[in-house]
């Protein structure tokens, strides 16, 4: 028997780690990976609540979140590639102009 709150605490820890990474990292790819970590933390609480409320819709929702995350990763990494092409840096502090 595993208390459901343990899952929620783990999910909160993962989400907090993702937020921290988003704040302290300066490499645009690592920032993007922190966002994926946050999505994973949220997915865990979705599945935990699906188990608690006997609702499989929660698991279907996780499936949709994963699909959207895949689409987001593809577009986001394409944007990173094009940013790197024009500025030749991955440091977000040096990407501070809208126009070149």
């Amino acid at each position, binding site marked *: 028997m595993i208390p459901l709150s343990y899952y929620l*605490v783990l999910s909160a820890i993962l989400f907090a*780690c993702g937020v921290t990474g988003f704040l302290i990292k*300066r490499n645009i790819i690592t920032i993007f990976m922190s966002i994926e970590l946050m999505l994973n933390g949220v997915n865990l609480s979705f599945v935990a609540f699906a188990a608690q409320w006997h609702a499989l819709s929660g698991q279907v929702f996780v499936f949709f979140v994963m699909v959207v995350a895949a689409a987001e990763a593809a577009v986001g990494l394409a944007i990173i590639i094009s940013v790197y092409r024009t500025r030749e840096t991955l440091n977000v502090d040096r990407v501070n102009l809208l126009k070149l």
Partner: protein
Amino acid sequence: MLHLLLFLIFGAICVAGAVNLLVQRHPIQSALSLIVVMAALAGEYLLLGAEFVAAVQVIVYAGAIMVLFVFVIMLLNAAEEEHTAGSRVAMILGVPGVTVLGLLVAWMVVQHSNSPSVSPAALYADPTTHGAPATIGTLLFSEFLLPFEITSVLILIAIMGAVVLAQKPQHGKEEK
């Protein structure tokens, strides 16, 4: 008891991977620790009776998405990140803030829930909690058919967007 032990082991691997993601300076090491987090999360999903989600987590997240990340890191030859004044401010203000926030959320969850327990054996026995591929598939093609179809359009748009964004700018065409 065994299940709780498994939960704690997978959870410890998850947290260790997440913290390692923050500590490492090189993006490729962060990416590899994120893969560890995702693989351990698949174990947690199995403990929650979500078979299908666990399989998709390994195949799509730890497989496809992270391969894409590692591929881009290698392609752009990303080096160790450099620290700037802004990142130091974020480190000094952000880390304690987020730690306090995380502890607060965890404390509230532990204190203010009567905390029902879930046992993996019961979850797998009950068809309303056991996320077998057949059950999820039936749900996906009946109740969630419209979102499912919209998602396929979204994926198509994402593919086209990625191709357009990542292709080399064609200066010759624009000048004509």
